[in-house]
């Protein structure tokens, strides 16, 4: 059963989390639009927080780093209701 929860029209989520900027200078993370592509094999997966839908439990924000200690398969795709 979907939990009967309050949910606004807009749910903010941090998006990409620029750990380098935060930990090295103490300054706020750069806007995401200015963050470079940092994903590469052998490198750390860029952490992020995103709002999400989980069937059976509802809406919640999820961070990639919540799953540290497990293998993660992260799949991007162009959009819901697309054909492939």
């Amino acid at each position: 059963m979907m939990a009967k929860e309050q949910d606004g029209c807009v749910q903010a989520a941090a998006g990409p989390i620029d750990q380098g900027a935060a930990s090295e200078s103490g300054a706020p993370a750069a806007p995401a639009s200015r963050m470079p592509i940092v994903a590469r094999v052998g490198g750390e997966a860029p952490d992020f927080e995103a709002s999400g839908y989980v069937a059976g439990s509802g809406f919640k924000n999820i961070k990639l780093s919540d799953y540290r200690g497990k293998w993660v398969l992260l799949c991007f795709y162009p959009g819901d209701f697309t054909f492939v």
Partner: protein
Amino acid sequence: MAAVAASHGELVELGVQVLSMSTDSRFIHKIWNEAELSKMVDGGIPFPMLSDAGGRVGRVYGVYEEAAGVNIRGRFLIDPDGVIQAMEVLTPAVGRHVGETIRQLKAFQHVRETGEATPSGWQPGKKTLKPGPELVGRVWEVWKPGQED
């Protein structure tokens, strides 16, 4: 995503957490799952469907396409230490092959456990390679294409 959902049982057995992500809102994910995906796969999508509003996450993963405002197909295998072990990025018209993703997962898990290397096309139970000075120039003695047993 339905194909990944159909293989979810095997992925769970391998200890894998699946996350899907597109620029659609969480509301659209809910309706897509209810209206269509749950009719393709029993029970619908069993993993979190994430929203990447504005493609902010896709940008740092190198999969955001500015012209269309969407993330193209990108698949990332991330190990328990948070390190990307594999990535595959496809333009939109060609779908992924979940079987190859699972094969790579098993190979990366084997390598992580044993320190061995797995040759081209390796499947669990098949021959592995033990890299070291004595193997240099002698791979032909232990492995040839088409004779993976």
